[in-house]
């Protein structure tokens, strides 16, 4: 039992970091933000699932996927298909030439619900599909790439191509997917109106809870022998292979896990935002997701969450204030992080906290740990936008 605590929670320091994040997500944000802002944070948290997955597969596994938007999108689309069918009951669509099918199908002269859509009447099938479809695609990509020893930059390019292909495919198959507009006007989940404030609050807490679960699962993987193997493979792939390990199977596993996390994020995104479109699938969103992980620290599961929040707060602030400058700022940020802070916010935090501890130690003041925790808590209390930066620096461990 104690071993499991050490393993999953990461002992005392891991627990502190996790608690700070939990307090921030489950108490500070809900208490201090209005429902509109909170819903926005919930949307960012949906992206954070992708970033947490990227920490596993990129940070630890050395597999840089530039196609995580594919899995995010597939998870989101699976959820959107279910919600769209529910929103397209024959009564509310009676003005269509074919009532009972999604509106965009009617606009595209489709007169019967396509076979691909049929199973999405069932919620349990949908939940399964949210996880299984992206994971199966990741499995196929993984088998095709890693078994043939396609790696490094070639793998990144292939995943980028796949994200371009999928977004083009979705846009092209307008009658089946809603095309460039995506699947919109989602209303209820099994009769429960997801557009109300109370639903948004519940969905926010669901996202935050699932995200923390994913982080715990990530920690379980990283602290197991498999986690050490991932790092060993990243640095000395040949040695691992000639120690009797099928390197490809481990890469496929971690890539599938990252795909699964991204898919959960996609489904939560659809539920909270009320639509899904190809603009979350293509190359640009996929690269943005890598930037979240890079800014937060690609070796830190918690850092990835802070990185996602920071970049997205920055994005909404700057794109409102200097819309034309935002993309340049984003590019500059990525370059700066790669050049000066290769371990992102988590790396900065590690360094600064060590310095702080050393400084406190040299002053021989009270125990070093206690003021540190208080500093974190007070910083976490300031949850207005200007405070985010401080929180990130303080708590990105």
């Amino acid at each position, binding site marked *: 039992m104690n071993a499991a605590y050490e393993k999953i929670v990461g002992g005392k320091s891991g627990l502190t970091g996790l608690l700070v994040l939990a307090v921030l997500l489950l108490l500070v944000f809900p208490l201090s933000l209005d429902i509109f802002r909170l819903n926005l944070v919930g949307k960012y948290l949906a992206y954070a699932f992708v970033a947490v997955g990227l920490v596993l597969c990129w940070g630890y596994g050395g597999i840089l996927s530039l196609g995580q938007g594919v899995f995010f999108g597939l998870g989101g689309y699976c959820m959107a298909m279910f919600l769209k069918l529910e929103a397209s009951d024959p009564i509310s669509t009676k003005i269509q030439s074919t009532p009972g099918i999604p509106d965009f199908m009617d606009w595209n002269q489709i007169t019967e619900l396509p076979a691909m859509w049929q199973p999405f009447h069932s919620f349990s099938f949908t939940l399964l599909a949210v996880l299984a479809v992206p994971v199966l695609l990741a499995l196929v990509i993984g088998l095709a790439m890693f078994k043939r020893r396609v790696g490094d930059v070639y793998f990144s390019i292939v995943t980028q191509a796949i994200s371009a292909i999928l977004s083009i495919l979705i846009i092209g198959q307008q009658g089946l997917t809603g095309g460039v507009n995506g699947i919109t006007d989602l209303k209820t989940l099994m009769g429960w109106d997801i557009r109300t404030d109370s639903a948004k609050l519940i969905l926010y807490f669901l996202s935050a809870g699932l995200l923390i679960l994913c982080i715990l699962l990530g920690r*379980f*993987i990283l602290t*197991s*022998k*498999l986690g*050490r*193997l991932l*790092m*060993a493979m990243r*640095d*000395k792939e*040949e*040695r*691992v*292979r*000639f*120690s*009797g*390990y*099928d*390197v490809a*199977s*481990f890469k496929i*596993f971690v890539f599938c896990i990252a795909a699964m996390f991204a898919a959960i994020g996609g489904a939560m995104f659809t539920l909270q935002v009320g639509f899904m479109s190809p603009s979350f699938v293509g190359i640009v969103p996929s690269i943005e997701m890598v930037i979240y992980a890079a800014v937060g620290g690609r070796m830190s599961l918690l850092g990835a969450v802070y990185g996602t929040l920071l970049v997205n707060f920055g994005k909404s602030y700057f794109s409102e204030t200097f819309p034309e400058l935002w993309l340049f700022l984003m590019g500059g940020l990525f370059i700066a992080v790669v050049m000066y802070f290769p371990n992102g916010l988590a790396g900065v935090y590690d360094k600064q906290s060590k310095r702080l501890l050393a400084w406190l130690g040299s002053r021989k003041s009270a125990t070093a740990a206690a003021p540190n925790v208080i500093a974190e808590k007070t910083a976490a209390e300031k949850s207005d936008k200007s405070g985010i930066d401080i929180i990130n620096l303080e708590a990105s461990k």
Partner: protein
Amino acid sequence: MSNAPIGFASTDHPVLAIEDLTVSFDGFKAVDGLNLYVQRNEVRVVIGPNGAGKTTVLDLICGKTSATSGSIRFNNHELTKMSEHAIVRVGVGRKFQTPSIYENLSVFENLEMSFPRGRKVLGALLFKRSPDVVERVETVAAEIFLREHLYTQADLLSHGQKQWLEIGMLLMQEPELLMLDEPVAGMSVSEREKTAQLLGRISVGRSVVVIEHDMEFVKSIAHKVTVLHQGKILAEGSMETVQNDPRVIDVYLGH
């Protein structure tokens, strides 16, 4: 325990039988119709000038390079048709020319990584450091003179200790065939002596194939020496026979 060259007299089947092995890279035959047999308890040293194909032979055995033609039989397995990790699992261990260890892990963790359990995804997720793992790691660490350094991070070891650590990682796998590419490169004289003793001990019950340039070291460990030249065997036999072979002197040892 005797250090006598058992390989000569042994009448049982060879552990490793390489027959008509050829590999050609764009028409260049790095290994050309090679025949090589290694017995149990034998330490075989492969020598030869640069580019003779020594490392390529090891690459072929461990599956890093695939053969153009010919066969490599290890016990009852045809290695030319197997993947690298499967070859390791049937009992072939390979040490690389430059020490290949996990620098940011401790000696203990390095050895543990090679413990032959939890080699699949699920097994690795649920792997536990049980008492038998600890015991095995400690035994091997003592064998490779790193008993006192179990919790040292591997990149803090000396070059020679890193070489031993990699040998130790192979021993963790309990291989029947151990292949070492230049194990004493960069070692001090005393480290070389210790390595020679180590090889003597670990060859009991298994076969060891060593590539080495240091003739003094070769003399101290070899039961039998194979001289490669341009992908073919130039001479084979005891150290003494090989050393006095005029062709070997001509192409490799010098006058």
